[in-house]
């Protein structure tokens, strides 16, 4: 059962993670300051702060694995892992650059033209260029291959019509990597291609969709006769499906997939104090054990990605298990503390609980629903 193997990372992939970790922790302590409390931390990777992203870029902590020729730092994937997990554990406001650094940059590096790489990658590494994901549509969510947004060839390039939905931070992004149909609808997989879309192009309308907490992260992005040049095509025409699957491996396996509720865990431990009773100790210990194991699995996937392997199955397993834990945390916190959630308060346990409860449903939706992930795992098991 190779698909469930999580091999250790190769020795040469690791330099001095302890030193880097200490450096990141010191930076974050100074940067976020003592007033960066639980309410802000609990926003997790939804916190949007371009100035912070630029300072990370100045530190050399964005585009870390990219070649120097493209403004990157040629660090290992494991070095990047250290930075990313420290950012998430601290609840740093990483939303601005998150998607660009996590999946758009590796996608462009692997599939983009030289001109696209030169244009985009240095700006991602500087923390100045932000991306959103152009996958879901009104009639194509879990069934991604049913995408109907169409890119038609014109004399000068492509004309795009269609609508993308649930697009996180489209309203703050510079680019979208768009999955669109370039071939016939019958050719479900082969008829798809990816495009690098400058969101300032005329004909693109970005409309907010508020989530259940009233927060504006998601958007509807509509394309109406949007003319893009031929060199907006990203990768090969007709290879969109394959490229998207590669992109999803980056999207599904990181520590963002099991640390979403981490601020609430910290708040819970603070609430319990240093002398837990039997039940409290048992609950916190179980969470710690799950986190430790998920972390090992996630590190292993980072190592496989760095070796150029395709750990799509393992990434899917990490995301499925991670979301289960993330969603269990608020229920556990309720059971232990008997506290009613209070949105709007600042830095109280009740406020962090409220934030996490209202965010939790998305944990098993974004990046692929639980049902879809399990279908992918079942396929890996040879059942489909």
């Amino acid at each position, binding site marked *: *059962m190779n*698909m*469930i193997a*999580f*091999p*250790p*990372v*190769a*020795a*040469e992939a*690791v330099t001095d*993670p302890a030193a880097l*970790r200490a450096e990141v922790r010191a930076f974050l302590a100074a940067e976020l300051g003592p007033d960066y409390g639980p309410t802000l931390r609990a926003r997790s990777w939804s916190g949007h702060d371009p100035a912070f992203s630029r300072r990370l870029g100045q530190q050399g902590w964005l585009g870390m694995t990219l070649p120097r020729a493209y403004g990157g730092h040629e660090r290992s994937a*494991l070095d990047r*892992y*250290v930075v990313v*997990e420290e950012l998430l*554990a601290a609840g740093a406001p990483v939303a601005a650059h998150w998607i660009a650094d996590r999946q758009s940059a590796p996608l462009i590096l692997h599939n983009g033209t030289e001109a696209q790489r030169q244009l985009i990658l240095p700006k991602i590494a500087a923390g100045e260029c932000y991306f959103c994901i152009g996958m879901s549509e009104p009639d194509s969510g879990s069934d991604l291959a049913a995408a109907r947004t169409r890119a038609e060839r014109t004399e000068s390039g492509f004309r795009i019509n269609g609508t993308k939905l649930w697009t996180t931070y489209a309203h703050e992004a510079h680019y979208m990597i768009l999955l669109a149909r370039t071939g016939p609808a019958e050719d479900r997989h082969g008829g798809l291609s990816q495009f690098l879309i400058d969101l300032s192009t005329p004909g693109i309308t970005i409309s907010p969709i508020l989530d259940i907490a009233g927060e504006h992260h998601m958007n509807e992005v509509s394309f109406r006769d949007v003319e893009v040049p031929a060199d907006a095509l990203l990768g090969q025409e007709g290879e969109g499906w394959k490229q998207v699957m590669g992109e999803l491996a980056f999207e599904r396996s990181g520590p963002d997939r099991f640390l979403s509720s*981490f601020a609430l*865990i*910290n*708040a819970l*431990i*603070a609430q*319990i*104090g*240093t*002398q*837990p009773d039997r039940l*409290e*100790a*048992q*609950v*916190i*210990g*179980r969470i*710690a*054990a799950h*986190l*430790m*194991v*998920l*972390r*090992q*699995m996630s*590190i*292993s996937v980072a190592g496989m990605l760095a070796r150029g392997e395709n750990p799509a199955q393992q990434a899917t*397993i990490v995301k*499925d*298990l991670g979301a289960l834990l993330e969603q269990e945390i608020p229920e556990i916190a309720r059971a232990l503390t008997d506290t009613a959630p209070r949105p709007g308060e600042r830095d109280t346990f009740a406020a962090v609980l409220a934030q996490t409860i209202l965010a939790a449903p998305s944990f098993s939706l974004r990046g692929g629903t639980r*049902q879809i*992930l*399990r*279908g992918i*795992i*079942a396929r890996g*098991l*040879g*059942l*489909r």
Partner: protein
Amino acid sequence: MDRMIADSAERLFSAYREQSFAALPAHAGADAAPLPSGLWAEIEEAGFPLALLSEDEGGFGLPVESALALVRMAAEHAVAAPLGETMIANLLLARAGLDPVEGIASFTADHALTLTPAASGWQATGRLHAVPYGRMAQTIVVRVETAEGVKMAALPSGTALPAHNLVAEPQDTLVYDLTLPADAVTDAPALCEEMLLLGALLRAQGMAGALSALLGLTVDYANERKQFGRPIGKFQAIQQELAVLAGETAAAGAAAEMAARAFADALAGDTEADWRLAVAAAKLRAGEAAGKSAAIAHQVIAAIGFSHEYPLHALTRRLWAWRDECGSEAHWARWIGETSCARGAEGFWPLLTQPEIRGAA
């Protein structure tokens, strides 16, 4: 793992799979299963009982992770053998400066034994409870508090009051009232303080191995068994269950490897990280996976899987036995939780990340 050793272990254990299954008594309450005849001789022949020892200590320099993988492999084939127990007992002896022993050995965290200095050595009295393979072991390694400090004793088998676990592995009470020679008792090496964790380390490996086999067996069954005109594995309801089983199996495997790596680092003395935390977490996580996975496998394989003739129970009974031995999930969760809370909220993340990312050689 060294390819040749892995291959020969695979051959060895797979050859004893059926015999080991047939040795399970018809009634779970009856008695422990005997070891399949010839199995232990072959294990000794292969040198596996010395697998955790360095070359200096009389071993053959196998990486610790590979040595522990032998335990996982035996469990994968549902082969009952006191291999892990003997490996750890020999390691403890080596750490105390003693030579490894011939034959089956075991160890226990129970320290209810009394040692008093006697004319020609030590007088050992008392009872040791639930000693794995106690009746078969020629040597039992225990930690004992004496008037002269904490000691480690290498005991002979003692009088066995037979008992066994859910999968008919001996878990005997050993009764002692005998004189030990002076050289059977030494100052306790540091490792001796963690007998329960050493057992937990083995159970975590065992559960990971049994789960891996459980997944294979259940998926194969779902692909072969037809209902409503198609294999039941074609139904989404079954697929979703099996995906959960795969996830749990993957987590248990990763947990066992995490524990093995941490233990390897600790034995090599080249880490400041607390290996105990990794082992405790692994035992907990594998134990949780064991319960969930056994339930899914029985649900999918249904009635035939509940019958004594079908080999599923050789795996699920192991999982149900091992998750409660050497500290249940609740036990280790409490311990990890106390350790975590004692450091406060600010110390929680540093605790989780203290096994620093490192590459495998």
